[in-house]
């Protein structure tokens, strides 16, 4: 029986891939029929390979029928150029050679494809499952919920060192083509050594290094994804990340929870009111305390002004140091309870809360009112539904306190307007950040076009 030679492509590829323990290059032969397989064992699903490739080979009558069988498999793909071929093999493709013909099958083993619970944006009603870390499962979840032929999915190989798949999803009928082109350009220009998650990718898409507010939204909720697709936005998913990026966004997207759509009007209106009140409280209350105690106690009604001043008796430093100190410890507490394992974080919050709450006032290091303000601020920070925005607000309010400490009540007001200016001057892929979504959007857009 003449020994059939290993195809030259195989030798070339295996020399490039070696030395790898899990690289497998096996010949199959029975009764003068020959085939060669090349794959990386750790990323290929062994059972499926056995079922769909190896067993049929031994059952087939001839090489020709095996070749046509392989060709008819749904996971068979075209053979790309060598560089991409290597990437494909290392991500779980199997290269098959039958005589001079080569076939490439996708039999990759994916172990992170379970659907995750919604952890970051939980709701009472609405879907309880998020999306998956595996991009195919994610795409499947989205397609299952958005059954329209106009939903387009384009996949792009990220040009970084890990060669992840990035998928671009949009509704062809609803999207603004200019915006789509802008997104694609940004993705093409992507020049980063390592992209690991949606959060990462977002920074590279935004291009700017120093930003205070997020200009794309990261979400894990499939209902939010579908809602935004339906409103003509682009969704960018990256393999290995349990979140997707939604762009473009406006400020008010960050203030909306998906649950707003699932309740009756009165409840929704009330929660939205709560949310915006919370936003203003956590942004303004610390600065207001500084302004009211150090600059203009006369603004408050007399009784209240006396109470505030009386509470501060014995506090040995000016109010802005008090505010900064307490805010600092509050932020430490928040950060600690976020990073700690769940078993310990309870203790941390209790101890921290007790110390901040009782001991500090008894030692006359802060006033009681300050403690109330700080806890009100801490609670209302968590009311903002999208985490990134509440993080941004946490940073922003420090600037506002500085401005107030310098310029008093007027500083607070003017600084707040400056903040609104910062927001108004921001753009997310050409869409003004503070655009108020009124009804007659079309007319307004025409004004926007230059």
């Amino acid at each position, binding site marked *: 029986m003449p020994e059939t030679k290993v195809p030259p492509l195989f030798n070339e590829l295996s020399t490039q891939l070696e030395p790898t323990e899990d690289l497998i290059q096996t010949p199959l032969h029975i009764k003068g029929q020959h085939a060669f397989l090349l794959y990386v064992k750790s990323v290929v699903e062994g059972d499926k390979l056995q079922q769909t490739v190896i067993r049929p080979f031994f059952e087939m009558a001839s090489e020709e029928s095996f070749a046509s069988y392989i060709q008819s498999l749904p996971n068979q793909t075209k053979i790309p150029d060598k560089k991409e071929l290597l990437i494909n093999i290392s991500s779980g493709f199997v290269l098959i050679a039958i005589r001079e013909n080569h076939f490439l099958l996708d039999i990759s083993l994916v172990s992170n494809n379970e659907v995750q619970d919604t952890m970051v944006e939980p709701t009472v009603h609405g879907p309880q499952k998020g999306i998956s870390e595996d991009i195919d499962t994610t795409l499947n979840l989205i397609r299952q919920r958005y059954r329209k032929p106009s939903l387009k999915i384009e996949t792009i190989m990220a040009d970084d060192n890990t060669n992840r798949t990035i998928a671009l999803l949009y509704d062809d009928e609803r999207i603004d083509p200019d915006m789509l082109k802008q997104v694609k350009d940004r993705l093409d220009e992507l020049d980063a050594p390592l992209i690991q998650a949606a959060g990462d990718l977002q920074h590279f898409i935004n291009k700017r290094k120093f930003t205070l507010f997020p200009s794309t939204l990261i979400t894990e909720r499939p209902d939010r994804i579908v809602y935004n697709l339906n409103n003509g936005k682009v969704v960018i998913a990256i393999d290995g990340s349990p979140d997707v990026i939604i762009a473009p966004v406006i400020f008010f997207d960050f203030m909306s929870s998906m649950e707003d759509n699932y309740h009756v009007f009165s409840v929704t209106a009330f929660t939205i009111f709560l949310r915006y009140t919370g936003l203003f409280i956590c942004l303004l209350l610390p600065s207001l305390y500084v302004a009211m105690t150090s600059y203009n106690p006369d*603004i408050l*009604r007399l009784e209240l002004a006396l109470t505030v001043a009386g509470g501060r008796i014995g506090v040995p430093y000016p109010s802005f140091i008090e505010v900064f100190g307490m805010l600092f410890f509050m932020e430490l507490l928040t950060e600690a309870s976020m990073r700690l394992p769940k078993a310990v974080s309870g203790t941390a919050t209790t101890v921290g809360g007790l110390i901040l709450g009782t001991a500090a006032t008894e030692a006359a290091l802060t006033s009681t009112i300050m403690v109330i303000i700080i806890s009100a601020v801490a609670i209302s920070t968590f009311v903002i539904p999208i985490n990134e925005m509440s993080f941004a607000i946490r940073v922003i309010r420090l600037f506002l306190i500085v401005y107030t400490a310098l310029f008093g009540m007027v500083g607070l007001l003017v600084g707040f307007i400056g903040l609104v200016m910062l927001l108004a001057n921001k753009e997310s892929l050409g869409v003004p950040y503070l655009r108020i979504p009124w009804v007659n959007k079309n007319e307004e857009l025409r004004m926007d076009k230059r």
Partner: protein
Amino acid sequence: MSRFLFYLILINMLANMVALTPRILILGRDSGTVLSLILALPVGMAITYIIISLFTHFPGQGLPEILREHTPKWIATPILLFFSLCWYFAGLTILIIYTFIIIRLITPDMSIYTIVLTFIIVITYGIVMTTRNILYLSEVILIMTVPFIAFILIKGYFSPELNWDYVRIAAMHINQFPSYRSFSTLLYFVMGAANLVIFNRYFTNLKKPTRKSMVLLTLISTFIVLTTYFLPIGFGGFEALDNVLYPWILTSDSMRMKYGIIERVVFVFIGTFLALAVLSMTIIWHVSLQLLSSVIHFKHLKWRKYNLTTPLLIVCFWAIALYITKKITIHGLYKSVRVFDDFFLPIIVFVLIGCLLLAKKGAASKCRKLKKG
């Protein structure tokens, strides 16, 4: 009419409601303010209508572009320079009057420099924003302030301290010959549409105002103008307001929120109108800066790849502002504003309309030539 244009007009009115206008009006209360009120409103609305409909012929073009296209340079440059200085002055008056109000009422022990410094950072950022984003900014700020304004006005109109007899006395002076001073002050008050000289760059689809929008605008302006004049008189009396520098501050200080955390309405009032003042200054100085930088451009003043003309102009803006704010007295401010309203405002209106008419004629003849050729 685009809602953003509406905002421009509205903001100009609201920011001046507290500033100098009420005092000038009230000083002329027994020499013909009432009739000037009645006259100035239709005239102002007519001028607004004319300016907007003239600008509809030049979609997406500001005055600098229009002039460059249709007039020789020796006409365009002085006009733009003159306009830019006028706009600068208009913004400066707002800065000065609010600085005075702040030093009088909120932080009396702060130096004038510190107060102006409060504005410098924010407004500098504001005037270099893009024109479009300023429009969005104005929308958001209006949404945030209008509830407060409505609250104060409702409280004012339903307050038991408001004495309608004084209002009636003031209205009885309708039979006097209108005074030019009140008339021109009011004209400035409703002249927000003139900001189109720059803001038209972003109205690519400006339409002639419809009858509905004109009626709405007229109603709103009438309400604001009448409130500006009559409400302080209703609170302070017809005779006694002679020595009051800020009639509206006095008016709002006459109101009290019995159960509120903040008892004196005046602080809510100042806060609200301060926000509008910052916004108005941003708009006006943005126009001024854009006009000026369309005339003055130093090609070689460069640092790395940034041209430094605009920063230099802004530094000049603030240096002059600081100097004047420190030097000027409230009396001097009133005097110069009167001169501005009496002489420069009509010139601005005539020159603006004249330029636009000429440019329109030029554009039409060019068009005809193109068709013939």
